[in-house]
């Protein structure tokens, strides 16, 4: 009880940051890509796909984790495929935690980016295309700069969601101290084990990271305003 070893604070914090960072990048690529693809589409199939992408937002994380476990585990198709190709079992690895965090953050990234993309006036894009701009050029020189704010908001919110991921991570990555125990899992573990001192310290670290992110958001906003 007396004295909390620094490594039991540092290890989960470093792992959490690493996982959240990679998950955010993955969510940006997949979520951003999907948002770009689906923006402006109103067909029935597009709506159904959108519903599927949004599912992780409404499913309880533990349920999400359960289905991820069924998919990535040795009885699931994806899990068997990965084991055959890469000769690794994903369950109980930090990579599984990355996947859990990515899936959890994906709908947030998707929604944030899409909301800003749809603000872009389609008439303006049509005009640009009439003037000979390719779909790719429209994306790079018009949509991305106009949606930069949405992308930025998406990145921050996804990062925070990935950082706080708990239920799905517990199911697929396990709660292994020093290996897959993230900050959220470590806090829960400390509360379960009655080590409230460590729980408070870990919570302070997590809160500190969150504050840092929120402040950097504010800083970015001010930069933008002054440059406009």
């Amino acid at each position, binding site marked *: 009880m007396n004295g909390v070893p620094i490594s039991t604070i540092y290890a989960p914090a470093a792992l959490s940051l*690493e996982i959240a960072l*990679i998950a955010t*990048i*993955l969510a940006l*690529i997949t979520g951003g890509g999907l948002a770009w693809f689906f923006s402006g589409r109103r067909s029935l199939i597009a709506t159904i796909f959108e519903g599927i992408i949004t599912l992780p937002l409404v499913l309880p994380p533990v349920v999400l984790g*359960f289905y991820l*476990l*069924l998919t990535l*585990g*040795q*009885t*699931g198709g994806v*899990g068997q495929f990965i084991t055959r190709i*890469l000769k*690794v*079992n*994903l*369950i*109980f*690895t*930090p*990579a599984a935690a*990355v996947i859990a965090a990515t899936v959890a953050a994906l709908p947030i990234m998707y929604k944030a980016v899409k909301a800003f993309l749809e603000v872009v006036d389609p008439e303006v894009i049509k005009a640009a295309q009439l003037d000979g701009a390719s779909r790719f050029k429209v994306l*790079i020189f018009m949509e991305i700069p106009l949606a930069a704010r949405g992308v930025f908001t998406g990145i921050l919110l996804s990062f925070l969601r990935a950082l706080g991921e708990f239920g799905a991570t*517990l*199911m697929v990555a*396990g*709660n*292994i*101290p*020093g*290996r*897959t125990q993230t900050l959220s899992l470590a806090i829960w*573990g400390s*509360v*379960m*084990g*009655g*080590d409230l001192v460590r729980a408070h310290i870990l919570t302070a670290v997590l809160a500190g990271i969150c504050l840092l992110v929120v402040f950097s958001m504010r800083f970015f906003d001010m930069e933008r305003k002054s440059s406009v």
Partner: protein
Amino acid sequence: MVIKKIKLLLLFLSLLIIISCLFTLAKEPVVKDELLVSAASSLTDVMVALGKEFETLNPGAKLIFNFAATGALQTQIEQGAPVDVFAGASPANLKVLKRKGFLADEPFKIMAYNTLALVVRPGFPVNGESPFILLKKPEVNRIAIGDPAYVPAGQYALELLIQLKLIESIRTKLIFATNVREALTWTETGEVDAAIVYGTDALISQKARLITQSSPEAPVEISYVIAVTRQGKTNRFGRKFVDFVTSTAGKKILTRFGFLP
């Protein structure tokens, strides 16, 4: 055009970095001679202590723990998680795994017993000891137990209430917690008047007051069981760790954390 190429190159490079990152992260959680033990979260502290002692006695052994609710641990093993030893809070979960062929071919062992404890919130008007019948009093409005659907402590508590013929009169007062520690926290903060938790939990709580404990055998026996999994058979420390936990030396450590041998 050059800018476009550079952009594509950057995109390709970042993808490469991400993929390589994933590869390093996907390395097997357990390397040779490491023993992965999945244990019920109520065993967290005592398992760490047992592991340290075992590592000192067996040079070369390295124990890795995975702590979660017994039911979640069972599901993980069923889905092929690389677990070597399973220590659960209820024999029921191990029986299922045994039937499905996930455990080594030997009877699993009882490693410790626990008791059920009645705790009340700070400031609850009761003097000294009082049996479980206290729950019938009108001053007790809310009683927390673990959700019997999936929390072993809750199943034991419900069984106890049935055995003591208290269940009918207090059924409407019951509030289900997602785990036993939550029930204890509600008592500590006064959200509920009383809770039925494990004796080991009641011991470490500084705020909730312990009123009474059930005896280890009756009316409800609470046993923690430990077994080597099918995968753990090939690990040279699997069997040894189970033997150590159930040995006199292991029992001594378990007793130190409030468990009964």
